[in-house]
């Protein structure tokens, strides 16, 4: 391969660092007005009255929308929609949109909007909220009985606080109408989703909505669902007959889209004395809102990991007076892994078996739920290579047994897994006679390097250099693609790019057979490169692509292609896997924890671009450090309000918190998942990290911290 598998810098890198890449709020639109959201200050009840008179008097104010004069949605689903009625369902709910000539004028006037409420008692504590059953997966075997009969048992409860995505770029949209045609610049992980949502909400034809989102400054799930602001922005634009822009403040981001749910998990494990798992009961409760159920099945991910004959994963949702949670990088998996991978560690100490060894003893060679083989699974190689690189064999088993001066040293490990998914995706490739190609698909690039990898795949199979490929995404005028989430973009859109390029080659090949004596050559034996189509076996068979087109009076060949997950996949379970090895140093006197080394070995199919892949993996590790030690959205339950809603109080790692981070790939040759062998990695890389850090902290200190984040006060 010329490009695939080789390091390539981002094709959009220069545009990004020179400011040419435009993010939603940066588009210059003539005559734009600015909307600022006014938020509720109670968590539950209704608006008794809302007084906008003072605000309306201020200079620059064009119009103020409340539930009394706002556009109502044409269709209904459970998702929150702003200004639809007087009901208040969470603290920070939008209750008005002030539209003015400038952002500053809108913000100022927003502060003068006065609401009176009829308050009702709210409940924001997951522990106390009423629960409903959610999907928890089938019971495998007879876990209760097997647990009773097990020689060794452990049982522990783990808690994860609410966490927020906090991408650098806040949500923003600019909406404008032309008759009943709506166009909107939006920050989105899936323009087609936003298009569908807006078309339904306004009761207009889908093709009358255009959504453009070429660059996204991080999203991590925060822009997977359409969110409430595109409708709010578009509705205001329609009413005032002018383009309207709404741009969130950092504080507004905390109630603007959702969050990783507060999760309480109880894990009970039964094992034999030699470490064979007999039973796992992994219960989970996650919070949701009162008006919408959000479930991410945190306990589901352990099920394919261990060869355990008896397994149960009951799952409940707790209805709280908070916004609905949403997908946040490695949703469910990382929360579940914190519990199950901590519990396996606890069991290892109980059994006096090395925690890595315990995982090897219970290694699942096939999917324990379905009995299907894995299409590929190089987790064992990850264990071996990761352990060797880390020097795991030098680990002393006893907690508190390793030191570096005043620092206690702890080594911990954990495993991560994530589905290797693929969804239907379409792409259009236009190969021109001049040897350039335009490629388009309505996917997104929220940071993983989608612009680059699709460019590479197209270049590889069209046989042209990547500079000759122009790949467009993030626009509803382009062919259908799924949202960018679930780590399935490269597998889905990349497969489409591959398929489309092969079809173009097939068309050219057919011309060559007809006009240039390629009879007897099979298309599989041909390749495109340097402007020629040629046989790899027979030097004499070679023709310039320009000549092929010219002969057929073509200036370009257009291929619209939709790739589908293969049927063969159904006979297999396809997962990505990884092993994490972590060293922490703990200053026990002061409670300070440093994550001094992380070695992560992952098996995620074929690595298309090692450079951006490593970048993804490092990002996941840094995220894991934050999740383990720092991240937490604190709620004052008396007010039902999130309080750490800015980046000074909501901590994520600073540079000084990150030390040695190394990421290795164990490549898998998996042609069952898709022709290029692509799995995803953007979420997998995070999954085991928080557990591995907590396990290392236990090894260092002998303290098992089961509630994240592991802050100083928990160590003292």
């Amino acid at each position: 391969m010329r490009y695939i598998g080789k390091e390539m810098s981002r094709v959009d890198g220069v545009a990004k660092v020179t400011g040419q890449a435009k993010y939603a709020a940066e588009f210059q639109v003539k005559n734009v007005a600015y909307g600022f959201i006014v938020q509720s200050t109670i968590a539950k009840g209704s608006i008794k009255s809302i007084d906008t008179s003072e605000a309306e008097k201020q200079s620059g104010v064009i119009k103020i929308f409340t539930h009394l004069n706002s556009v109502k949605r044409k269709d209904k689903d459970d998702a929150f929609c702003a200004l639809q009625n007087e009901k208040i369902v969470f603290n920070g709910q939008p209750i008005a949109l002030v539209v003015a000539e400038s952002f500053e004028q809108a913000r100022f006037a927003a502060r003068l909007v006065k609401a009176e409420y009829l308050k009702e008692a709210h409940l924001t504590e997951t522990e106390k909220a009423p629960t409903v059953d959610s999907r928890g997966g089938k019971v495998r075997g007879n876990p209760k009985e097997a647990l009773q009969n097990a020689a060794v048992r452990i049982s522990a409860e783990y808690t994860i606080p609410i966490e927020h995505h906090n991408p650098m770029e806040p949500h923003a949209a600019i909406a404008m109408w032309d008759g009943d045609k709506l166009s909107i610049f939006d920050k989105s992980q899936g323009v087609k989703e936003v298009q569908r949502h807006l078309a339904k909400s306004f009761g207009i034809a889908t093709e009358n909505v255009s959504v453009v989102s070429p660059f996204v400054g991080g999203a991590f799930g925060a822009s997977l669902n359409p969110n409430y602001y595109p409708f709010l922005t578009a509705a205001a634009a329609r009413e005032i007959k002018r383009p309207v822009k709404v741009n969130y403040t950092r504080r507004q981001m905390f109630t603007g889209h959702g969050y990783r749910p507060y999760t309480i998990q109880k894990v009970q494990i039964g094992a034999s004395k030699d470490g064979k798992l007999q039973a796992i009961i992994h219960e989970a409760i996650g919070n949701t809102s009162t008006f919408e159920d959000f479930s991410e099945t945190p306990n589901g991910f352990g099920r394919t990991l261990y060869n355990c004959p008896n397994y149960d994963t009951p799952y409940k949702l707790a209805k709280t007076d908070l916004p609905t949670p949403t997908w946040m990088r490695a949703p469910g998996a990382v929360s579940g892994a914190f519990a199950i991978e901590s519990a396996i560690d606890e069991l290892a100490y109980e059994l006096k078996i090395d925690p890595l060894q315990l995982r090897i003893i219970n290694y699942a060679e096939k999917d324990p739920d379905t009995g299907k083989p894995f299409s590929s699974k190089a987790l064992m190689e990850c264990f071996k290579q990761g352990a060797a690189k880390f020097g795991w064999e030098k680990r002393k088993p006893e907690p508190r047994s390793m030191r570096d001066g005043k620092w206690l040293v702890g080594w911990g490990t954990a495993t991560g897994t994530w589905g290797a998914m693929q969804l239907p995706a379409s792409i259009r490739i236009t190969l021109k006679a001049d040897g350039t190609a335009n490629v388009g698909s309505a996917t997104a690039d929220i940071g993983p390097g989608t612009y680059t990898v699709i460019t590479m795949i197209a270049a590889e199979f069209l046989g042209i250099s990547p500079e000759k490929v122009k790949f467009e995404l993030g626009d509803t005028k382009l062919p259908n693609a799924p949202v960018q989430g679930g780590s399935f973009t490269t597998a889905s859109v990349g497969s489409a790019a591959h398929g489309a390029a092969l079809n173009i080659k097939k068309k050219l090949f057919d011309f060559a057979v007809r006009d240039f004596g390629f009879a007897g050559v099979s298309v599989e034996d041909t390749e495109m490169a340097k402007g020629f189509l040629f046989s790899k076996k027979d030097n004499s068979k070679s023709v310039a692509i320009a000549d092929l087109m010219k002969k057929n009076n073509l200036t370009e060949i257009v291929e619209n292609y939709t790739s589908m997950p293969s049927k063969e996949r159904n006979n297999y379970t396809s997962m990505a896997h990884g092993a994490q090895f972590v060293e922490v140093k703990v200053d026990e006197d002061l409670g300070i924890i440093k994550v001094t080394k992380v070695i992560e070995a992952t098996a995620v199919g074929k690595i298309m671009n090692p450079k951006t892949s490593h970048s993804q993996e490092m990002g996941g590790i840094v995220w894991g450090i934050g999740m383990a030690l720092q991240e937490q959205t604190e709620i004052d339950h008396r007010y039902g309000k999130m309080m750490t809603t800015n980046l000074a109080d909501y901590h994520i790692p600073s540079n000084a918190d990150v030390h040695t981070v190394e990421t290795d790939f164990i490549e898998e040759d998996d042609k069952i998942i898709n022709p290029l062998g692509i799995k995803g990695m953007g979420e997998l890389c995070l999954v085991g990290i928080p557990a591995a850090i907590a396990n290392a902290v236990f090894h260092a200190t002998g303290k098992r911290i089961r509630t994240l984040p592991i802050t100083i006060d928990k160590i003292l």
Partner: protein
Amino acid sequence: MRPFKYERATDAAAATKAVSANSSAKFLAGGTNILDLMKEDVERPTALIDITRLSLSQIRSANGGVSLGALAKNTDTANHPLVRQNFPLLSMAILAGASGQIRNMATNGGNLLQRTRCPYFYDVAMPCNKREPNSGCAAMEGLNRMHAIFGWSEKCIAVYPSDMAVALAALDATVKVQDANGKERTINFGDFHRLPENSPEKDTNLTNGELITSIEIPKNNFAGKSYYLKVRDRASYAFALVSVAAALETNGNKIKNVRIAMGGVAHKPWRAMEAEKMLVGKEATEANFKMAAEAEMKNAKPLEHNKFKVELGKRAIVRALSMAMNGDKA
């Protein structure tokens, strides 16, 4: 942000006059705190008097000590040879605060007057006596993990966030100010910031319109044995849970002179007088450090979520003194 008037002052007299004439006017220095607070609608000045063009940014030696201009940047102050050589404690404290970018903008005067980071103070929908007198203190029974363990009142339990000021308290600095009539006065550092008592809306004993012109640190012999320890929720760019500025002057192993000030524990930099008194004349041993730390911390009055600060404070005092005494060997 509410509409406000912006004026650029040409000299100190004009600046102090402009602010003292208008009870809702404020000085604008680096702007790293006041502008944030205005965007959050917490501070609502009707006029900002920009003082950044006044010539108050010199750092020079004065009577064997150092005089720090009120408008000298935090970065320049921390890196100035006079400060690094004679008052390394101050360099360490400044560099432990905020981020490089913020320190490049932040001024010494502004740093002293930065306001609390209590989340309820920042949230205008919440009751807060400091922001709105007599509205109540939401932190008292709320999220108070970051709050005070010393000197708080029923009205307010906030802590003062500056790191720089903790070192200045330990170094017995004084603050020079000038009023609208051109009258100067010098305030001892211990009297500059206030405890909340009945009026938490007042952070300091400055009157409206009084301009800080410089901060003076007298000569001392602590340069060889001083240390600023900051314990926080991440390695950089976080406010202190507890910090300790420790400075020792010894004769052999005997303590001749000692200064200990704490941050993150009170409404002002907290001089650990009790501990200091116990240590003078004693051997600089860990046992003595511990005894002194315990004596100081036994007067702490923690709240529901910050009990850990008492034990952490003790250990931080001991660690800071040991680091001051022995450097990295501690």
